[in-house]
């Protein structure tokens, strides 16, 4: 009989309830030492909840956690860290104004009598970075680093604290393809050095690339546990959604792979959205858009690819009239709308699907009726003699809820109570139903699961086919490739690549996104 | 040290203690409440008023209560009506700014006597007051005039100062009387008057006093009520011996080194007198008396008497003699300190005390 080493982390029967809703329902997970263990599941399946429970953010209602074979109970992240478990959250937890070194040592600062030993801290952090082979200026404020750099700081924090079990919640969501590859390499290295990694991701390509084991969770329960060799993308997608088999193509395949073909004939519609020589500043006052020009024609989806933070936000805001433009011209349907208020810009027929649906798309504490009427009321419609026409608003809301299959369709429930996918459907319903001439959509499927992604993509294609000009900005390359008729790359506030989808070459594309010179 | 100490009272009810209707015929005590703008132990205006409650002739069988600090008109109204509804017979308000509130209470409770002051009502005002209302005033300038006499004699620099809170007649008359008194005995004296806008901001009072001291002032009159503490603080840190003259209450104990004397306006005497009048049914024309306005001054009720010097070395026998002489002249009318209204130069006008010729008032 072979004596196996104890599991690095074993979760037995973890149950976590929020009120009457069970987010984790008796979940078992077995993470071996030195493996990458992926947790896979739809939105709201309960993955983050599980990790947060393990990390001591909250206590499970029942179940036990074993670390290296010994049962533990964490009252706070401090306990988890002490037991060698570290976690990187979906949203970074860094202090932007602190240096890399300060961020890394926070919570375990070298100090003498309460006095910080800054030099010692910097040396120690540098040493840890060297050990992993990362090149860091540890005195640099973290706020100045790129997203991938910040991600590394997050991991560095854990390694510095001696964590041997890393919990990573969707670490690749904000990274460019090249950066993702870099991260996977890093994880591979960590695995080789004996660390155990629990990884949450929605991107099946990453799972097949690195996972040793996959635990599939649905509705808070473990549905399947698969070992290397037992899964490919199709199997995983099926396990996740509970359907028989999902074509990976629908999810988005690797660049250059088989995708739903863009329309064969390039549309020859009028130019409905045109930016010429637009420059704008970021909130921090730095140049965000620099002499940027682009156009979108009727019946065309233009995909805007780029790494987070290259001006996508500012671009959408500039088009919507939310951000002052310093120079250049923005035209919608041939009308110069530069410097117009959002209300006037909207009135020319602009629909916007923002990346942050909770913060920018819906008013979470207003009802479905109110949210669906938001644009109309803002435009000054939906009222007669100054009096809001609630009955008409309600009727239309009812119609949209059934058209877009928003569930649960209780018109008086708040938008905030909807799940992510349904919230996005609500935004789409509002923005697309008014028959816009131009739609600007940013990462419309960010954080959504496979099923929801499909629904959103179908809607976007449908308006395109109806003759709307669509500008689709997405961090997810696969999404751009799946939808776009023409692809642009934005880098440091400029368009650095502009090619029809069919002519796209994979290498130049990826290179353009990180600022390489391009020969398309 | 004030008058009004009297014969041992019989505890029985006095037949005429009924200024108001209702509860009084059957040996009920005469109930009076004082509403004031400071606490009963503020060692200042309100303290002095509250002390008056202990000086009421015991034979009158008066039961009294005191409420303070009250600031807004609503508070006076609410307190007043609260007491009035609880069977009190008289409400005495010792805040000059609350005439409207007082008149309102008087109108609401015609059976209750309401007295309010210090105010100097016009003839029209008096005609418009309800019959159960009485107004009172005290001639503060008599007191600050005497303080000025002392200051004019004590000052080594011929500069004196005064720190005041709000800039309205009841306050303005104080420093103006002060400088007039000083000029009465010392023609070379000049004054620096500072208004801080607050009766509670000790920091501002101190800063104002320091400014005056830096300008040479060595005797300071306080017209800032409780913020007088700031004046002590400033005088304690002064480069030369500097004295403060607080008001209303013998404040020697508060700062023995710096308090020269205190101007006592005999508020206790006024309080006791008004209440006694009330208890004897002499207030308000409805009850037989026809007086509605009582103006207290040095001649009629020792208003403005100075507190004991507590052996302060700066007060020489000559100074005491001179002071006594002026007091005599005030009492017999040889000297008349101007009032607040009048054709010539009311003393509640900025600068009046420095421009009126002392000889013209009998100095």
């Amino acid at each position, binding site marked *: 009989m072979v004596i196996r080493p104890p599991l690095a982390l074993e979760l037995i029967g973890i149950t976590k309830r929020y009120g009457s809703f069970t987010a984790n329902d008796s979940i078992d997970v077995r993470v071996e030492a030195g493996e990458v263990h992926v947790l896979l599941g739809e939105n709201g399946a309960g993955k983050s909840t599980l990790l947060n429970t393990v990390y001591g953010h909250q206590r499970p209602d029942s179940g036990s956690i074993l670390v290296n074979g010994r049962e533990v109970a964490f009252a706070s992240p401090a306990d988890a860290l002490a037991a060698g478990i570290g976690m990187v959250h979906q949203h970074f937890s860094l202090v932007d104004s602190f240096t890399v070194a300060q961020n890394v040592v926070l919570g375990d600062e070298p100090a003498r009598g309460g006095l910080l030993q800054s030099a010692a801290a910097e040396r120690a952090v540098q040493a840890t970075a060297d050990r992993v082979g990362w090149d860091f200026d540890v005195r640099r404020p973290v706020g100045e680093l790129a997203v991938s750099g910040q991600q590394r700081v997050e991991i560095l924090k854990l390694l510095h604290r001696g964590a041997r079990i890393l919990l990573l919640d969707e670490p690749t969501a904000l990274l460019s393809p090249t950066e993702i590859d870099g991260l996977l390499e890093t994880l591979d290295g960590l695995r080789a050095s004996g660390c155990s990694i629990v990884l949450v991701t929605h991107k099946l390509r990453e799972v097949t690339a690195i996972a040793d084991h996959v635990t599939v969770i649905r509705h808070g329960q473990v549905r399947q546990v698969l070992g290397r060799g037992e899964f490919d993308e199709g199997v995983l997608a099926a396990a996740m959604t509970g359907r028989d088999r999902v074509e990976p193509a629908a999810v988005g395949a690797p660049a250059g792979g088989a995708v739903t073909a863009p329309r064969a004939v390039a549309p020859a519609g009028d130019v409905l959205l045109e930016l010429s020589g637009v420059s704008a500043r970021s909130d921090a006052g730095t140049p965000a858009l620099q002499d940027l020009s682009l156009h979108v024609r009727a019946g065309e989806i233009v995909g805007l690819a780029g790494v987070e933070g290259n001006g996508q936000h500012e671009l959408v805001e500039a088009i919507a009239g939310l951000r002052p433009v310093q120079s250049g011209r923005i035209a919608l349907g041939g009308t110069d709308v530069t410097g117009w208020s959002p209300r006037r810009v*909207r009135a020319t027929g602009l629909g916007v699907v923002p990346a942050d649906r909770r913060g920018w798309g819906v008013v979470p*504490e*207003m009802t479905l009726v109110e949210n669906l009427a938001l644009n109309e009321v803002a435009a000054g419609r939906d009222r007669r003699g100054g009096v809001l026409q609630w009955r008409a608003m309600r009727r239309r809301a009812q119609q949209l809820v059934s058209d877009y299959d928003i569930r649960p369709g209780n018109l008086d429930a708040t938008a905030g109570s909807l799940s992510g996918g349904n919230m996005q459907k609500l935004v789409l319903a509002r923005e697309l139903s008014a028959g816009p001439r131009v739609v600007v959509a940013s990462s419309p499927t960010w954080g959504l699961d496979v099923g929801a992604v499909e629904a959103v993509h179908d809607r976007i294609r449908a308006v395109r086919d109806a003759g709307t000009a669509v500008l689709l900005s997405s961090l997810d390359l696969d999404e751009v490739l799946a939808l776009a008729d023409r692809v642009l790359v934005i880098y440091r506030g400029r368009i650095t690549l502009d090619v029809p989808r069919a002519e796209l070459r994979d290498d130049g594309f990826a290179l353009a996104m990180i600022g390489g010179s391009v020969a398309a | 040290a004030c008058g009004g100490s009297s014969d041992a009272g019989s505890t029985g009810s006095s037949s005429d203690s009924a200024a108001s209707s209702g509860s009084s015929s059957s040996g009920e005590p005469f109930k009076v409440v004082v509403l004031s703008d400071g606490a009963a132990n503020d060692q200042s205006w309100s303290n002095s008023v509250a002390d008056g409650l202990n000086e009421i002739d015991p034979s009158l069988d008066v039961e009294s209560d005191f409420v303070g600090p009250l600031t807004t008109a609503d508070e006076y109204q*609410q307190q007043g009506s609260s007491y009035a509804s609880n069977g009190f017979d008289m409400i005495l308000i010792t805040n*000059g700014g609350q005439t*409207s509130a007082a008149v309102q209470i008087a109108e609401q409770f015609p059976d209750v006597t309401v007295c309010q002051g210090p105010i100097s009502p016009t003839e029209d005002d008096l005609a418009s007051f309800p019959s159960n209302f009485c107004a009172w005033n005290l001639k503060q300038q008599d007191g600050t005039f005497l303080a000025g006499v002392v200051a004019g004699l004590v000052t080594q620099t011929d500069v004196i100062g005064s720190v005041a809170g*709000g800039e*309205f007649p009841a306050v303005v008359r104080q420093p103006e009387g002060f400088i007039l008194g000083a000029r009465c005995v010392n023609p070379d004296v000049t004054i620096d008057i500072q208004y801080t806008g607050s009766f509670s901001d000790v920091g501002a009072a101190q800063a104002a006093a320091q400014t005056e001291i830096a300008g040479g002032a060595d005797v300071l009159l306080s017209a800032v009520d409780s913020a007088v503490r700031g004046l002590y603080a400033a005088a304690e840190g002064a480069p030369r011996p500097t004295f403060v003259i607080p008001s209303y209450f013998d404040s020697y104990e508060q700062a023995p080194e710096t308090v020269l004397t205190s101007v006592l306006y005999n508020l206790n005497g006024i309080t006791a007198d008004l209440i006694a009048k009330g208890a004897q049914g002499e207030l308000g024309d409805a009850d037989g008396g026809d007086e509605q306005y009582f103006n207290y001054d040095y001649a009629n009720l020792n208003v403005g008497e100075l507190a004991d010097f507590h052996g302060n070395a700066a007060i020489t026998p000559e100074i005491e003699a001179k002071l006594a002489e002026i007091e005599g002249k005030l009492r017999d009318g040889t000297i008349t300190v101007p009032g607040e209204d009048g054709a010539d130069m009311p003393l509640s006008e900025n600068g009046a005390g420095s421009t009126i010729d002392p000889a013209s008032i009998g100095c």
Partner: protein
Amino acid sequence: MENALRARALPVVGSVAMSAVLVVLLLLASGVNPFAAISALAQGAVGNAYSIGQTLTIATVLAFTGLAACVPFTAKLWNVGGEGQLYMGAVASVLTGLSLPDSLPSGVVVALAVVAGALGGAVWAMIPGLLTAFVGASEMIVSLLLNFVAITAASFVVTTVVPDSSGQGTQRLPRDTRLETIWPEGGVNISLVLVVLVVTAVAVLWRWSRFGFAVRAVGLGRDSARLAGFSTRSVTVSTFAVGGAAAGLGGAALVLGATGQLTLGLSADYGFIGVAVALVAGLRPLFILPSAVLFAALSVGSNNLQVAVGLPKDLGSVLVAVLVLALLATHVIRLRGRAS
């Protein structure tokens, strides 16, 4: 509606009970019979026609200042300058009343003075409104600091511009140019009717107008509302203007009421208590009326504490504060959409 009322009212009652327990303990600790104190409080607030009248008079002012807080709060803007806006309304109102020619009918004078009060408060509130909307200043700090400026300005008007003989109040408006008394006990005047109308008007606006929708949308989801086409600038300026106008009306109600003058200490922190009124009302306009009555009763009633049980009347504001803090701490009153 009925359900909403019940859902709202029940916990309030519960927490009032809880803070009552707290207060009872406090009273016991200071050696006072709590029942005597509480009955004194109740007596003082509603014990007779006169005190009921006073409670209603103060409630009128508090409802106005409550509205002054509530309207901008709904857009998640902190107007803590109700006190100053009240004073500026009072100043404008009194100056207008005094300066209009005698030849005008008194009704017209009163109406113009009331309008001037609203305008005075609104203009004053526009300072933080505009600075926030166009310069990005902190509306909370600006409105807070402006209270002191307003009170000083009012004191200037009292002592220097139109002083009466005491110099501690302005000249008095003639009786026929004050607000009409509708209930002589406690001097309840027509401003009570006015405040009910104004509160109702705001409630109607909230539900039935684009403005109300915009204010709620901006308050509950600023960025989403902006993207949808609502202007946060105009919401900022207009909510401050409306709130300031309400506070200004409160000032007008005070000076055009029984006394007919502006005095140095016009407001007993009504502007600040208005914040509590708005909160206890859960930022729902109609609930402001009962909430204002509650606080008015506490403040008027506490005046009875000294005469009845010998407690300093300043404990009244302690009582108000303890009650509100208890309500907040037990999460009975909760601000919607405050997490960001």
